[in-house]
C-alpha cells in the first residue's frame, strides 16, 4: 500500500492526518495497536513541524504512507525553514513535571512509538522526516 496526502500546516489538520493513517492502515490489515502508534508518532511530528518549523505561519505538510512487508513508513515533507526534530532534546522523563520545561514530550512519545526516525534535507531544500515501524504480519 502506498498513499499520500497534503494538508495545510494547521493544528486543526492533525485530525485529518490521523484519520488518513488509521483508515489506510486498517484497510491494509495492520493491527490497531500498531497503527495507533504510527498515528501518535505522526501527530507529534506534524505538530512539531507546525509549531517549530513553520512557527504557526502558513505552509503545507505532505504525508507519504507506505506499508510493505511488515514495515510501515510515514514520510513527512515540509517547506518550513530547515529544522531537524531528531536533534531536539527529549523530555527528561525521570524528572518530576515541576522540573521539566514544557515541550520535548512530543519527541519522547514519537521516539517511543516507532522503531526509527530519520531526518534529511531533500534535493529541493525541504525538510523530510521519515518514521518507520515494523510489525509481525
Amino acid at each position: 500500500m502506498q498513499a499520500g496526502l497534503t494538508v495545510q500546516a494547521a493544528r486543526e489538520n492533525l485530525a485529518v492526518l490521523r484519520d488518513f493513517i488509521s483508515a489506510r492502515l486498517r484497510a491494509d490489515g495492520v493491527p490497531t495497536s500498531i497503527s495507533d502508534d504510527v498515528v501518535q508518532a505522526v501527530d507529534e511530528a506534524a505538530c512539531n513541524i507546525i509549531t517549530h518549523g513553520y512557527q504557526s505561519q502558513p505552509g503545507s505538510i505532505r504525508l507519504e504512507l507506505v506499508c510493505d512487508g511488515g514495515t510501515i513508513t510515514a514520510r513527512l515533507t515540509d517547506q518550513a525553514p530547515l529544522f531537524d526534530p531528531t536533534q531536539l532534546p527529549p523530555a527528561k522523563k525521570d524528572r518530576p513535571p515541576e522540573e521539566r520545561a514544557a515541550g520535548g514530550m512530543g519527541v519522547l512519545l514519537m521516539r517511543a512509538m516507532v522503531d526509527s526516525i530519520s531526518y534529511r534535507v531533500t534535493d529541493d531544500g525541504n525538510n523530510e522526516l521519515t518514521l518507520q515501524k515494523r510489525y509481525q504480519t
Partner: protein
Amino acid sequence: MEIKHESLKRCVLFTVEGRIDSSTAPDLQQKINGIIDQGNFKVVVDLRGVDFISSAGLWVLVNAQKKCKRFNRGEVVLSGVSQRVRDALNLAGFIPYFNIYDDTAKAVGSF
C-alpha cells in the same frame, strides 16, 4: 472534543470525549483552569470517552495537577483511562503523578 463539567459535593467532575490533540488541548486547559481559578482544587477528569491524547493533552493534565496541588488536599484524579491513554501517560513518565481509578464513582469518592 466535548467537555462537560459538573460541580459535585466535594469535587468538580469533568467528562471529556473525543481526541485531545494540540488543536483541542487549549480548550480543555481553558475550561479546567477556569474551574480551578474559581477555587475548586479537587477535580476528577473522566477520560472514558477519550481515545487519543497527544503530548499537548498530557501537559494540560499535568499543569492542572500542578495548580491543584498547590492547595491543601487539592488534586486532579483521573478515571476511565483507556489503555491507549495510559500508555501515553506511562511513556511520558506521568503515571506517578496521578491517582487513576477505573470507576468514576470511586474517583469522586476519593475526595
